[in-house]
Every structure is written in C-alpha cells, then in structure tokens.
C-alpha cells in the first residue's frame, strides 16, 4: 500500500470519527440521520480506496450496496419522522 493511499485512509478514518461524535451528540433524530448518511457515503469512499490498495475491482460492488443502504435508511427514517413515530432523542 503506497504512502498516498495510507494518508487517504487515515484522513477518512479521522473523518469517520468526527461523524461518530456528531452521531452520539446530535441533539435530535434528524441530525443523527444526516450523520448516518454521511457515514455510509464515507464508507463507500473508503471501500473505493481499498479497492485500489488491494487491486480488487470486486470491492466496487460493495461500495454500490453501501451507498444504496444509506439512501434506503435515510428514506426510512424520514418516513418514520413524518408519520410521527415515537422518539427518544
């Protein structure tokens, strides 16, 4: 793994930690959903970099699935909020 890929992975991991802080602290449920969506997008980016690092093109399928799951989770949470589900912020 080259130095540049290591730098990229390290920076993205630091970013994931920042998002996790917001996920725990977020004052309301929509804030946490936004943090989760960013989390899944960043994981898709990390998987792309790992695909380069390990020369494994198949990992891109995992990135597609990751982005899809984040989108579905956001839509589900938004529907839940709009229908007025019980919340415990």
């Amino acid at each position, binding site marked *: 793994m080259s130095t540049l890929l290591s730098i990229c992975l390290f920076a993205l991991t630091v970013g994931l930690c920042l998002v996790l802080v917001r996920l725990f602290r977020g004052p309301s449920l929509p804030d946490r959903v936004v943090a989760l969506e960013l989390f899944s997008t960043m994981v898709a980016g990390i998987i*792309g*970099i790992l695909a*380069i690092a390990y020369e494994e093109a198949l990992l891109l399928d995992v990135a597609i699935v990751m982005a*899809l799951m984040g989108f579905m989770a956001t839509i589900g949470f938004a529907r839940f909020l709009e229908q007025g589900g019980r919340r415990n912020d």
Partner: protein
Amino acid sequence: MTELLEDGLLLAGTAFMLVAALGVLRLPDLLTRMHATTKAATLGVSLIMLGVALHFGQGGVVARALGVVFFVMLTAPVAAHVIGRAGYFVGSRLWSGTVKDELKPNYDPYTHRLKSHLETEANATRLTPESDDAS
C-alpha cells in the same frame, strides 16, 4: 501522467470528505449540517470513484465506478430533501443567527398546507373545504 492525475483525484476526494465530516461536526443546526454533507460528500465520493476508474481502466470496472457516481448524484439530493422536510416538520430548532425563515409565515404545521399570498376569492372558497376541518 495518469498516475499523477489519479493521485490528485484521490487526494481531492479525501479532502472534500474530510471537510464534510468537519462541517457536520462544527456547524450549528440541521440545515447547515445538511448543506455541508450533501454537496461536499457527493463531490468527494465522485472524485474518489473517478480515481478508481482511472486506476483500473477496464470497461467493466469503469462502468461500475461511474455507476456509483451516478447513483450517489441521483440519491443524495432526494435524501437531503426528504430528511430536510422531515426535520422541518418535527420542528428541529434553527440556529440562533438565522436571518430569515421564509417558510414560517406561510406554512401551517397542522394541515401541511402552504399559502402563496396569491389566493383569489375563487381559490379561497375552493381551498377551505371540509377536508381542512376534518384534519
């Protein structure tokens, strides 16, 4: 040359994603946080995927990487719209420095109905039917 371009794309994508993460941590309320995450993260993952496509350079892999870009660009605005709408409905608090909330005077949170201030007499009689009383 190609490798240099690929390295640049990866670094730029990483930088944009780091900025998005920093923004979601540091910005004061829901809408500003969404403003950081949707645009910067979409651009970041798009740049990284372009770098991946450039690295492998085979038809199938390029198609898949561009598929990720296309998919993220298609879904991120929809997800942002939906979660922003839900956040406004449940009344998440705006930042204390917010200058103007254009939606507030025109929006009825109980019926989810917007006023346009262009209501004529005919519209007004049509827009105040029994359905409003029922809800």
